Each structure stands twice: as structure tokens, then as C-alpha cells.
């Protein structure tokens, strides 16, 4: 089981994600450089980390989406590979069209850096199978543009297909004004997941604040991949 962490110029959570995959999950992990279009089929899960790729110029994720590696990531995702995009990684997935919708500036116009309470809405995904729907996860956010937007028709589709994976617990808890308190969504096929909160920042107790809820997301990925491996007779 091998993880790949895609690094763009301006990514700043790539080492945190690497640490969680390599040290906390104890799985072989590579850093994958943005300039190299390459065959990614050796990886079982790709992580698109947070940060400010290409300075967030024009729109968050807009330039990163056209870096050479993204062509490979799109191919990988379309072939069913697991992709998790965290914060800026989520923004890149939206710009790349791997997930529907778009990101706006936070309603408050402020950069928000805080713990948020999330409700697990769909526990039947490779990223949340260790949780139960209704569980509350405490995971921090740190972003200026996390105000997820999708039109009414698109939202109805997300709900009907159970693509909303995590929601901020309430409107008061919503740090950015996102539609329907959406914090994270997946694609219809369930193999691509994007979320604004940072599970890699709360996957070990040493990192403080008492929450290790982020670990549940990564452990879900491992559990999903282990089961899939068994079914394939690996």
C-alpha cells in the first residue's frame, strides 16, 4: 500500500501529509513533484496537500490545475485511484473538474484558523468508513477561500447522490459561509474526496488540542485499501 503526496510550488502542508502517511500510518510514501507528468499507477492513494499553490494567483488552484502532474492525477482518478484533496488540494480538485462546484472568498473576508466541528454525513466512502454517519469530528481549518459554492441544481444532485461527506455542524460552526454548511464532498464514484479542514493536523495526540479525529480519515483510507487488497487476493 503506497501513498503519494503531490507537491506544487507554494504547497505548505505537504510535509505534514507525508509525515502522517509515512510515520503515523507507517506506509511507504513518496513526494510527487508537480513538474513531472508520470504514471501514478504504483500509488494506492494520492494526497493533494494544503498551501497556496502558485501564490493562489488568479483563483485558488487555478494555475496548479494546469501543472503537468495534474494531467496524470486526472487520469489516475478517472481510472478509479483514490485521491484526497485537503484545503488547497480541494480547491485544485474543483478547478480541475474532478469535483463539482467552485470556491469563493470567505463570507467574513477573513482568513480563518480555528478548530471546527464536523458532522459525518456519509460514512460509506473510502475516506469515512471508520466513522458512523452522525459522528462529530473536530478538525481544524485554515483558509481564506473555503466558501464552497454550487448552484441549486448541483446541490440537489450532491444530496441525492450522497456526495456530501462532511458538513460543518451548524451555521454558527461554519467558518466560511459555504452552501449547505458543506465542508467536504466526494465524486459520484466515491474515489475523489475534497475537504477544507486539515485532518493531517490532528492525527496524533502530541499535536495538542485533544483531538485526533483526523486520524479517522486516514485510517479509513487504509482500511478501505486493505479490504480491497484482500478481495483482489493481494
Amino acid at each position, binding site marked *: 500500500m503506497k501513498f503519494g503526496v503531490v507537491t506544487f510550488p507554494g504547497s505548505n502542508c505537504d510535509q505534514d501529509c507525508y509525515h502522517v502517511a509515512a510515520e503515523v500510518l507507517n506506509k511507504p510514501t513518496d513526494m510527487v513533484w508537480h513538474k513531472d507528468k508520470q504514471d501514478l499507477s504504483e500509488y494506492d492513494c494520492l494526497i493533494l496537500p494544503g498551501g497556496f499553490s502558485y501564490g493562489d494567483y*488568479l*483563483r485558488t488552484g487555478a494555475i496548479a490545475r*494546469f501543472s503537468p502532474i495534474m494531467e496524470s492525477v486526472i487520469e489516475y482518478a478517472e481510472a478509479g485511484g483514490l485521491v484526497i484533496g485537503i484545503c488547497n488540494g480541494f480547491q485544485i480538485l474543483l*478547478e480541475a473538474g474532478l469535483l463539482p462546484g*467552485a470556491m*469563493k472568498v470567505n463570507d467574513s*473576508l477573513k482568513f480563518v484558523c480555528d478548530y471546527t466541528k464536523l458532522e459525518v454525513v456519509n460514512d460509506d466512502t473510502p475516506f469515512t468508513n471508520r466513522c458512523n454517519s452522525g459522528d462529530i469530528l473536530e478538525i481544524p481549518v485554515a483558509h481564506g477561500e473555503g*466558501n464552497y459554492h454550487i*448552484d441549486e441544481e448541483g446541490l440537489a444532485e450532491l444530496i441525492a447522490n450522497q456526495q456530501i461527506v462532511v458538513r460543518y455542524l451548524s451555521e454558527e460552526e461554519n467558518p466560511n*459561509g459555504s452552501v449547505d454548511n458543506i465542508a467536504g464532498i466526494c465524486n459520484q464514484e466515491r474515489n475523489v474526496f475534497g475537504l477544507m479542514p486539515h485532518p493531517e493536523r490532528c492525527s496524533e495526540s502530541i499535536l495538542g488540542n485533544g483531538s485526533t479525529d483526523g486520524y479517522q480519515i486516514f485510517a479509513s483510507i487504509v482500511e478501505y485499501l486493505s479490504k480491497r487488497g484482500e478481495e483482489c487476493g493481494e
Partner: protein
Amino acid sequence: MDWKVKIKVMLKKSILDPQGQAVEDGLEALGYNNVSEVKVGKHLELSIEDVATEEELEEQVEEMCERLLANPVIEDYTFQVEEMEG
């Protein structure tokens, strides 16, 4: 032929513009009470070389807007083109 292009990218009308709202509040704080509907957008200027007709040029600019310069999910764009004097 060479061209100058000016592109305006704005949030769609149906989408709340928190920046515009903040600027409007700022103007009101300065005493401009008759200002409303403030919208903040982006203005891009660029030169394009070797395109024979305005029609071809518009096609290219539209494509560039759709693919990168605007996000069609939340933004609309308009543009003006002008032939560069040789």
C-alpha cells in the same frame, strides 16, 4: 494582425459578493450614502499576436476565459478587442 485585449471577470449576478459588500460598507462609512450594488471583479489586459480576423481572436479569447481566466461556475466574463496599430 496583432491585438490588444481587455477582459473583465465578475462574479455572476446570482452570487453574493462579500468583497463588494465590504467596499460598499466602507464607502458608506466615509459618508457616501447613495452608493449601492458595489461589485469587485478582475481586469486583465493582454496582447495577442498573429491572429488574422476578429472572429478568430474572439474564439481564442473565449476559450482562454473558459479554460483559465474565469471560473464559469461562479464567474461571467466580457472582453473588448482592439487592433494594434502597426
